[in-house]
């Protein structure tokens, strides 16, 4: 198997201790409200082999983009050309 299948490329460096301190209380509270997936054990494990679902998906045709989405895209494009001041607001909400 080639190197592409190894962990190479994913830097394991963590956030700095200073940032951990800075976010510490907020992090603790969030983790209490929403426990990390790794702490949920079997609850967060894959419940079944997804290959059969994958085969079904492979047999389906590609999802077509509805006409409404194209219309929305056209309106957004026209709006950004006519009103460039809207661009920062749109980017913020993306």
């Amino acid at each position: 198997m080639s190197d592409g299948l190894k962990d190479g490329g994913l830097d394991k460096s963590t956030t700095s201790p200073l940032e951990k301190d800075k976010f510490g209380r907020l992090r603790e509270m969030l983790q209490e409200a929403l426990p990390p997936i790794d702490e949920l054990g079997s609850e967060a494990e894959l419940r079944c082999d997804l290959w059969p679902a994958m085969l079904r998906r492979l047999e389906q045709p590609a999802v077509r983009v509805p006409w409404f989405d194209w219309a929305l895209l056209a309106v957004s494009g026209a709006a950004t050309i006519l009103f460039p001041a809207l661009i920062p607001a749109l980017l913020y909400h993306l």
Partner: protein
Amino acid sequence: MELLERFAAGDLDAFESLFRLYQSELYRWVMRIVRDAAVAEELTVEAFWRAHKAHAGFDPQNNFRAWLRRIATNLALDHLRKRRPYVELAEDVAAEQKPDSAVQQQTRAALRRALAELPPRLRIVAQLGLIEGQPYAEMALALGISAGVARTRMFRAVRLLRKKLQRLGVHP
């Protein structure tokens, strides 16, 4: 021929081998973002489907895992965007309910709400970084941004979260 080369050439057996190798890991990664088992399963399959469709453009010298994870992360981000306006993160994956006081329950609900109200590109960084403890470099790779941008987004997310929490009467 190597597995990745066979995949890039469109070999379905190679694709199946890669699928079986990475499905669990990818599912867990998506779960960290969407926190919903059914959605995570659906997005995992969709990510592999997109990878399969793009097999011809994949360079076997590249990191398949990172490429796949980026596809899945983009799908998960799209899912968060579609789920707006602001559906709270449910406690579905944390089914074990602790015997909390009403105040604690309110605090937890406020935290989930504040997180859900963040813009998706900030929320994903907050969830992966603050809750899941993922390093900036890993988040950056999955999101297709630099580690510096990931860090900037984290600081913006924290600032916004604090503001929202204060509005909800929680002071972290």
